[in-house]
């Protein structure tokens, strides 16, 4: 599966030249960030996405109190809710009730609502940290490739090709299978999560690397870079003072769009059974258990919807952010 990520530049419509020329005067002097913020504030859909993202983060952070009020501990068995012969929930609609908001799991009667709330942090944490890792690797290598060009660019370009040609999931599954119990000062789920962050982040850097490389290439040719080079500035100075600051906007945008992709990746790994160790709940893991009980719609639906809403929210927000930063879009 490839990242269903829109990596192309955004659109510009045929506009009378006067509009842009005229607008150019009015907004001169404002920073790009402020313009972007102004645009973002007007984009209701993107704002909705952003608000949902914030809510999700809050849910992940305050999972314990939420569960305490609305549910039962996510690992707690409620076998009294289960029909002992079929092992399915006794109540209608998968045992949904005021007590168990989204019903209970078959076999052990765990509270699905609580498990979904408790599963949020894994998805978000891995989504965020893996993205940071790929941004770090992608930006470093992309800037180096774009700035220095020549054989360095060639080698890094080939490296990106190799990564793109890797059957990712196969590797992820294989690697996850051979990871030991302890290592790098971590053990158990800590190591497991670190490994997933590593796998996901390490394999998704080329997408951001390519964008950064392209941007660096064009920045390198700009006058201000030429100017400081002619003044004898060192590479390091040019890179950190002049190129990187100008890369911040595209990096921010594509990082935001990479998060949902990585969340989907995490869900896929958990779905294939190589995620964090049970009984820690994850949305992908819940879905993979639901496969065996496909006759229970609620068991399939809720974790799936949780993934969907999260990914959609990030996509909406990221799209809005990109439109806001990309002057051609408006």
């Amino acid at each position: 599966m490839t990242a269903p990520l829109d990596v192309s530049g955004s659109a510009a419509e045929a506009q009378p030249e006067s509009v842009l020329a005229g607008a150019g005067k009015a907004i001169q002097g404002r920073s790009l960030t402020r313009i972007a913020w102004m645009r973002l504030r007007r984009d209701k859909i993107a704002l909705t996405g952003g608000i949902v993202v914030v809510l999700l983060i809050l849910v992940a952070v305050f999972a314990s109190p939420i569960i305490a009020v609305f549910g039962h501990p996510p690992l707690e068995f409620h076998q009294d809710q289960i029909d002992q012969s079929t092992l399915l929930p006794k109540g209608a609609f998968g045992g949904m009730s005021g007590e168990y908001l989204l019903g209970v799991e078959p076999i052990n009667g765990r509270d699905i609502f609580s498990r979904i709330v408790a599963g949020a942090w894994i998805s978000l944490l891995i989504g965020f940290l893996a993205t940071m890792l790929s941004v770090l690797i992608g930006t470093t290598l992309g800037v180096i490739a774009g700035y220095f060009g020549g054989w360095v660019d060639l080698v890094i370009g080939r490296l990106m090709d190799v990564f793109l040609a890797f059957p990712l999931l196969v590797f992820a599954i294989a690697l996850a299978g051979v990871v030991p119990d302890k290592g790098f000062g971590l053990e158990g789920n800590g190591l497991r999560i670190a490994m997933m962050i590593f796998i996901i982040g390490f394999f998704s850097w080329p997408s951001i690397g390519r964008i950064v490389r392209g941007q660096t290439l064009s920045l390198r040719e700009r006058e201000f870079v030429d100017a400081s080079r002619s003044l004898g500035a060192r590479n390091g100075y040019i890179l950190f003072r002049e190129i990187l600051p100008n890369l911040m906007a595209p990096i921010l945008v594509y990082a935001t769009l990479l998060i949902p992709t990585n969340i989907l990746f995490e869900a896929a790994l958990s779905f294939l059974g190589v995620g964090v160790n049970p009984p820690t709940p994850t949305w992908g893991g819940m879905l993979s258990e639901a496969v065996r009980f496909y006759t229970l719609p609620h068991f399939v639906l809720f974790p799936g919807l949780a993934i969907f809403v999260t990914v959609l929210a990030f996509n909406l927000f990221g799209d809005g952010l990109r439109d806001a930063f990309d002057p051609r879009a408006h």
Partner: protein
Amino acid sequence: MRRKTALAGAATAALALVLSACGGGGGTQQPADSSSGGAAQPAFNAGLNEVYNPSTKKGGTLKAAHSADWDSLDPGDTYYGYSFNFGRFYWRTLTTYKPGPGPEGNTVVPDLAEGLGEPSDGGKTWTYKLKSGLKFEDGTPITAKDVAYAVARSWDKKTFPHGPSYLNELLDWPKDFKGVYDDPDADYSSAVEATDDSTVVFHLKEPFASMDYVVQMPMTAPVPKDKDTGAKYKEKVVSSGPYKFETNEIGKGFTLVRNDQWDPATDPIRPALPDRIEVQVNVNADDLDNQLIAGDVHLDIPGTGMQPAALGKVLPDPALKARTDNPTIPRLWYISVIPDTPPLDNIECRKAVMWAADRVANQTAYGGELAGGEIATNVLPPPIVGQEKFDLYATPGNKGDVNKAKQALTACGQPNGFSTTMTYRSDRPREKALAEAMEQALAKVGIKLTLKGFPGSSYFSDYAGNVNYVKKNGIGLAAHGWGSDWPDGYGFLQAIVDSRTIRDAGNYNLSVKNDEVDKLIDQASAELDDAARAKLWVEVDKKVMEDASILPVVWAKSLLMRGKGLTNVAYNEGQSMYDYILLGVE
């Protein structure tokens, strides 16, 4: 070989068992009219103690499916119960389990042989006389040489790594024997020989009584030497039974058609009803259940029961439930409590685990009473001859006893509990559910479990059955399951509780390392009297439970569904599933 003594000890004892149980066993009746009439109305467990829907009508196509794949179709390279059972459509062995329902299914009857084996030399030599008129599918007669050759080829574990090793260990193979492939002219008559066209003689290193049970395994199915292609033979097995291969695509399926060279006069035990048998492998398990319910498939080959989604459909529906049988099979699902891992090296800590476990939750994890099995209180499952049920760790409602567990923890010096790791096979959802249930139950007494799943394919080789791995990673508990090759104490217990079988990797005994248990095993193996021996195996069982190194979960039951239009359906205890060779279609 540590195993030798055990085998030798078992020898004469088992002999007595077999002879008495068989009652001179002739087994010449047609199974359809064997038992008391048979049942025709669908009812729950209708195929358990009698033949359901008996029929002698020939014709039709039996459609069977398998959610995974055979280890091998080669009689010398297979070790799955369903394979032993199903293979009898296209192979015949010296003996076989008596077909049909009821306790007699545990006994063996001659198949290729005219009668059961003739022991001599105090049980060190076993002679089998072949029937006359036996032919391979190409019309060439089956001779004793073909049987001896089949046994000799199966010795080569390099070529046939999957099959059982009993004959490798029992027979007196030449010292420098390299196998029939590496040394085609080797003389292996010191182990097995054809003294004439119809006489097969086995020479054992030590006396051994249960030879008739061993030769019912497919290593004795004849293989013509000139058609033998080693590891590729499974692609084109030459039939000695009533059906032969029409097509065979490894990994997809195969079709069996009638073998016109098979003479029913030589074979009273196989009614051979269908004209054709079609087998699909690697079918999605849920789809297989649905097809079985709908009637598109007659038979689920592995015979281990239905998937949870189907159970949810079948159990509440009386009409569907009436099509099922629910036998207890000689299999125990359990948890190894590994004494190598501190603090489980202290027996009190192990006992704490015993007391803390919620047996009902564990049973539910395994699929509940019908699909999972009866709550197990000790190691030996009920179908094992002489089994006794006892419970050293009885708790109210089987829900575990926090107080007793805490007392044990205190006695262990860990009053606040401890942390350890539990492994399970990640491709087995029931083991995962079990691990989660254990995590919950043990948490109540302060024992913190970390759960780790591993692929089933390398579970015993690389992880739970690998001594180094277990020690290095501090594995305290491991989900496990075991079924017996034949239904006595030795057949069930030896591989999983004898500490002397333990080696570096690939172990099945993960946790029982107790000298007293080993001593009792030797004692039981040497005991001649049936009843006394059975008692001794029960003693082994008790000792293991006292050692608290095995936490029994369930004595497995499988919920089997009789396919629509299937005739002559009967559960056979020896096979632990439906007796496939009896089946016919309407």
